[in-house]
């Protein structure tokens, strides 16, 4: 198990009900973690509509998670 910190924005923040959380997970990759959280919290967006950032930078879904990392799952953007 490793401990990760997650920040939520926009639709994911509303569906999770909090802006951030720290949790223990056995997920090996960012993609596995999102799948775990999606089934736990009923997130409507599938991973293929999201991007992920690890420690403040865009990262691939198969990036390995290490203890203490900070993740942000990025819903479809709509700036401007």
């Amino acid at each position, binding site marked *: 198990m490793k401990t990760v910190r997650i920040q939520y924005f926009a639709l994911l923040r509303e569906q999770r009900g909090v802006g951030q959380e720290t949790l223990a997970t056995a997920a090996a990759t960012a993609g596995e973690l999102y799948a775990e959280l999606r089934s736990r919290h009923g997130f*409507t967006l599938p991973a293929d509509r999201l*991007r992920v950032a690890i420690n403040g930078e*865009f990262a691939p879904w198969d990036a390995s998670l290490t203890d203490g990392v900070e993740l942000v799952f*990025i819903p479809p953007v*709509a*700036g*401007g």
Partner: protein
Amino acid sequence: MSFQISSQPIDLAVLRNALAHPHAGACATFEGWVRNHNDGRPVLSLEYEAYAGLAEKEGARILAEACAKFDLVAALAVHRTGHLQLGDLAVWVGVTAAHRDGAFGACRYIIDEAKARLPVWKKEHYADGVSAWLNCAIRGGFSTAAGPPSGPPTG
């Protein structure tokens, strides 16, 4: 040269002064305003939320790309967060170059890339009391907004 995410109103005079430079012969700016409709629905207001740290990093990359492509003197941009009302300035882009072609092209490039790439989200509040995050709709497990935004309320 910076792309700023701001929870405060954008001060145009300060930005314009920051662009001033004796090498600059052209200045192009773009303002994205909150408008009162989107996809045929009346819109009352907009909420913007941003992952500010990454948005500013990605924004700086976009400005650097524009400088490389268009031979700019300077480039600056600001995107608002928070609850904005109709007519409010949501995003501002300003560039200077020796000549107008580069300035026009760069301004367009920056706003197009910013809309596509910055981790910024927009929630529309409609006249019928409903609100929704743009581009995040899902129906029957399939995307209802798989393509690019069909008509965001600004820009």
